[in-house]
């Protein structure tokens, strides 16, 4: 091939010039042709004219060729970049293989950081960000009756109130009511022998268009379904359809038996659909046509939709106006009542959980930062060791940008490996979360690693790769090639390098201190909460809720007989110490309440009569629950409806009603101050907590005899040695008495209590795990930096040792330096924690957000950990042979 001219080579050195190349190529062709024609005897101008004529449109050809050339240049540039990247990556992987220890530690550290973030992001996304299955869910609002003076914030709504509200708030485009869910017995066609317990809710058909969700199969309930005399229609949930009917396509139009009555399934709702406020599986039509006019008959739940462009803030004054009018028109029933409202998204997640989750997001971000600091430190240390290599590459002509790019590629490759590991950790973590948070996390079934979570992981990996890689890369590429080569391998990054390292140690210490303080505060709250006096003994108690259908048990005698027989059966089971029934066990259900008066002491006009919670119990309830009888007597088998009406009151009730007097023998009138029934107090019992562990005072409580007032829904409570064996026995006893009754869901009292503290336990558990991880990472980080600094000082330490300095002094000098850094970190961390732990306040119980003992304990812990982490390299330094060190072998 003919040689390329020097000039052209020079010109091409500055980059390709496609336009010029094409021009020259075509000019050459034209000149050749002209020369040839001239040889045949044409004149110059004739030859040129003939050539151009033959060429056709030169401009077109030139343009086409130029476009093609430019494209070629682009393709080549891209290929070059790909090659460089591939080369960088290959080199990075070779470097990883050569430094397995470093790679493993760095990748694992980052995997922990990235994994924790991915797992928590998945939860946060699933719970807070994934849209609810309703059209424009942000416009949905839940409404309650509120009575501030009686501390009732979220009370049900009476049909009479609802009808008055319905048209009175212009900010709402629609409003619909529904009943709370109740237990029902479902019999499937062809499965007559096995009745199943399901939850049903009567809902106004208007609720479906209000929520904006159509049926998955068939149709939703329509206004006609609620008309009197309409054929009974129901809509079922997707879950019921898939779990109980095996996704049978023919379910729509089929007849089922619900509580002994035939109903027709007209539709199946889509997956994930539910009506906020009632977790039912079957919806029946609700009509308010025949509902009571009594404004105090409050039992409905209400949802509304904001009109387009209207806000909750605009709806509030309008709602206040209608409640004020109702209070004026019906002072007896509506005087202190107002309307409370909350957006559905907020209601679904709950304020406390939302806050806990956001705190958690912050916590894992801290863990990631610590992991980044650690890895940056490792990279710095390794960059120092690689200084010769880098200097050599610089000397051989690699530009600073090229070297930075190479080092950054290494960091990003590392982050990529870590992201893979992190994803595995996150998958495992989410599995664990599902177990831990089953009862705590709303919408947990919607938590999974999906596209948004993967995108998030990629982003976090990229960001942290740059974060932990950029600083070391810039520092390394800046180092002076000549200096590094001259030093002949004995490297030192100088004062600036140590400054960066020290700053990283300080950052790690302060970040982990903040996390540890948070964990400590939650732990103290939890211990305090566990120590709350319950007033009953939860250990070894089993709770089995039952509900008798009115069709099968129409009168109180039959109800009474049923529960009496079941209790007798259970009592005879082996291992059962005692058994009783109560209408609502502690932490297991609703909290019924009543108002009462003292007959010989009428309530002054204008004052409200006192209120109390109540329970209806069978004899032996106090013994079974371990509630102490303080004075008087317990209920006996004789306290039936034929005996005088008696009541047991709690200590708080007695103290409030008859301060400094003996309550035994006193009388109270329940409900209506004139016509209400009168009861005589026969016993005073200890206070027991039924609803909340966290309120400072216990609600006043009254107990009535179930033998005198049988209830259709009761919970059997059993105390015995082995709750598992008892559950089987209780199930068999119930089936023996009446096989038509669906098997109840039985729970240990301990588990019910666990539910109450579950959000706390969840937050504490995760916080503790992440704080421990942070502490471990920080300890590793401090150890790593101290080892490195000690290695840097080996020379100096060796000389001092050789000159006779005592090992102890050298030890102190190394440890002292680590402790100085730690103290700075502790100082910064304490200041940060002081400001940040306030966000935890809502999750704390009887512990201040700036609880000093916690702060002090955590600071001490960190100083100890840092001391130990630096002691190891320091000790090793003093053991080194000074001669070897001085010769540069050590």
């Amino acid at each position: 091939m003919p040689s390329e001219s020097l000039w052209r080579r020079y010109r091409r050195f500055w980059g390709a010039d496609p336009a010029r190349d094409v021009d020259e190529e075509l000019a050459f062709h034209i000149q050749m042709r002209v020369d040839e024609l001239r040889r045949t005897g044409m004149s110059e101008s004739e030859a040129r004219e003939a050539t151009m004529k033959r060429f056709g449109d030169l401009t077109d050809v030139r343009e086409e060729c130029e476009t093609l050339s430019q494209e070629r240049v682009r393709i080549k540039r891209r290929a070059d970049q790909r090659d460089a990247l591939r080369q960088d990556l290959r080199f990075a992987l070779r470097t990883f293989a050569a430094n397995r220890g470093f790679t493993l530690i760095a990748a694992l550290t980052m995997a922990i950081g990235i994994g924790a973030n991915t797992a928590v992001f998945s939860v946060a996304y699933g719970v807070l960000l994934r849209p609810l299955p309703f059209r424009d869910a942000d416009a949905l609002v839940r409404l309650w009756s509120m009575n501030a003076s009686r501390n009732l914030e979220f009370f049900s709504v009476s049909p009479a109130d609802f009808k008055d509200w319905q048209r009175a708030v212009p900010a709402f485009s629609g409003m619909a009511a529904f009943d709370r869910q109740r237990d029902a017995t479902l019999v499937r066609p062809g499965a007559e022998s096995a009745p199943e317990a399901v939850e049903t809710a009567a809902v106004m058909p208007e609720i479906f268009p209000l929520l904006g969700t159509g049926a998955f199969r068939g149709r939703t309930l329509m206004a006609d379904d609620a008309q009197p005399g309409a054929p009974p229609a129901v809509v079922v949930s997707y879950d019921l359809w898939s779990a109980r009917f095996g996704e049978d396509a023919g379910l729509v139009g089929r007849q089922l038996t619900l509580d002994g009555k035939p109903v027709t399934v007209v539709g199946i709702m889509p997956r994930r659909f539910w009506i906020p406020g009632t977790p039912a599986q079957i919806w029946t039509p609700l009509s308010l046509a025949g509902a009571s006019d009594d404004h105090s008959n409050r039992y409905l739940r209400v949802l509304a939709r904001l009109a387009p462009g209207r806000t909750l803030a605009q709806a509030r004054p309008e709602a206040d106006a209608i409640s004020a009018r109702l209070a004026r028109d019906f002072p007896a029933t509506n005087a202190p009542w107002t309307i409370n409202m909350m957006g559905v998204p907020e209601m679904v997640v709950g304020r406390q959980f939302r806050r806990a989750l956001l705190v958690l997001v912050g916590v894992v971000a801290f863990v990631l930062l610590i992991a980044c600091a650690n890895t940056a430190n490792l990279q710095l240390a390794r960059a120092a060791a690689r200084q010769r290599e880098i200097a050599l590459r610089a000397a051989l002509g690699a530009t600073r940008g090229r070297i930075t790019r190479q080092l950054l590629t290494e960091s990003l490759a590392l982050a990529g490996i870590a992201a893979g590991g992190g994803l595995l950790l996150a998958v495992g973590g989410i599995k664990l979360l599902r177990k831990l948070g089953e009862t705590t996390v709303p919408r947990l079934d919607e938590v999974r690693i999906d596209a948004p979570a993967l995108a998030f992981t990629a982003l976090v990996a990229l960001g942290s790769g740059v974060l932990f890689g950029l600083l070391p890369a810039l520092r390394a590429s800046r180092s002076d090639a000549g200096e590094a080569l001259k030093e002949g391998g004995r490297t030192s990054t100088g004062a600036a390098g140590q400054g960066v390292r020290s700053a990283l140690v300080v950052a790690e210490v302060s970040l982990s201190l903040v996390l540890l303080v948070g964990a400590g505060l939650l732990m103290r709250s939890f211990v305090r909460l566990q120590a709350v006096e319950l007033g009953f003994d939860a250990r070894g108690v089993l709770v089995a809720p039952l509900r008798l259908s009115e069709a099968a048990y129409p009168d109180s005698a039959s109800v009474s007989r049923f529960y009496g027989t079941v209790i007798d059966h259970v009592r005879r089971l082996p291992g059962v110490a005692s058994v009783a029934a109560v209408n609502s066990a502690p932490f297991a259900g609703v909290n019924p309440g009543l108002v009462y008066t003292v007959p010989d002491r009428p309530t002054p006009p204008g004052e409200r009569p006192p209120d109390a919670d109540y329970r209806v119990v069978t004899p032996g309830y106090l013994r079974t629950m371990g509630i102490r009888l303080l004075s008087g007597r317990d209920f006996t088998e004789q306290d039936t409806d034929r005996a005088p009406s008696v009541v047991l009151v709690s200590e708080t009730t007695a103290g409030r009603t008859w301060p400094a007097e003996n309550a035994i023998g006193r009388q109270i009138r329940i409900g209506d101050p004139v016509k209400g029934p009168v009861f005589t107090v026969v016993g005073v019992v200890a206070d027991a907590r039924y609803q909340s562990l966290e309120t400072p005072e216990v609600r006043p409580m009254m107990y009535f005899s179930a033998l005198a007032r049988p209830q259709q829904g009761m919970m059997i409570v059993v105390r015995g040695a082995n709750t598992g064996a008892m559950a089987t026995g209780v199930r068999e006893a119930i089936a023996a008495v009446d096989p038509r009754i669906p098997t109840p869901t039985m729970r240990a009292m301990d588990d019910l209590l666990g539910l109450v503290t579950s959000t706390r336990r969840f937050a504490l558990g995760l916080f503790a795990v992440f704080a421990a991880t942070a502490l471990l990472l920080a300890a590793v980080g401090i150890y790593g930096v101290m080892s490195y600094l000690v290695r840097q000082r080996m020379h100096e330490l060796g000389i001092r040792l050789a000159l006779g300095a005592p090992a102890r002094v050298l030890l102190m000098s190394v440890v002292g330096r680590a402790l100085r850094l730690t103290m700075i970190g502790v100082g910064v961390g304490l200041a940060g924690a002081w400001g940040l732990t306030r966000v935890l306040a809502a999750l704390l119980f009887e512990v201040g957000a700036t609880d000093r003992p916690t702060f002090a304990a955590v600071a001490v812990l960190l100083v100890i950990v840092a001391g130990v982490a630096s002691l190891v390299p320091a000790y090793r330094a003093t053991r080194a042979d000074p001669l070897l060190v001085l010769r540069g072998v050590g």
Partner: protein
Amino acid sequence: MPTELPFKRGAIELLILKTVSWRAMHGYAIAQWIQDTTDDALRVEEGSLYPALHRLENKGLIESRWGTSENNRQAKFYTLTTEGRRTLRAESESWMQYAAAITKVITATRQPA
């Protein structure tokens, strides 16, 4: 002079590949060589030759280099790449099969049944 046969775009690319398979050549020489080899039966239009050269270069079938021509001028020389040699072999094969098939038909002596 025999009639000048018109030919298609795909064909010129095949001819270029064959031409530069001998040695490095500039565009003018390629055109000349084709014309000479076919005894002036095929005349290569400049308007289609150069775009075809650039297309082939973009496809990576030929590569170019600037050099000095026989009369001492700067010219762009094209050579065949390995990929181009492979393509040339395959395309020649299919072209010959095609040509043979056409020949069979138009030289047929037996009348259709």
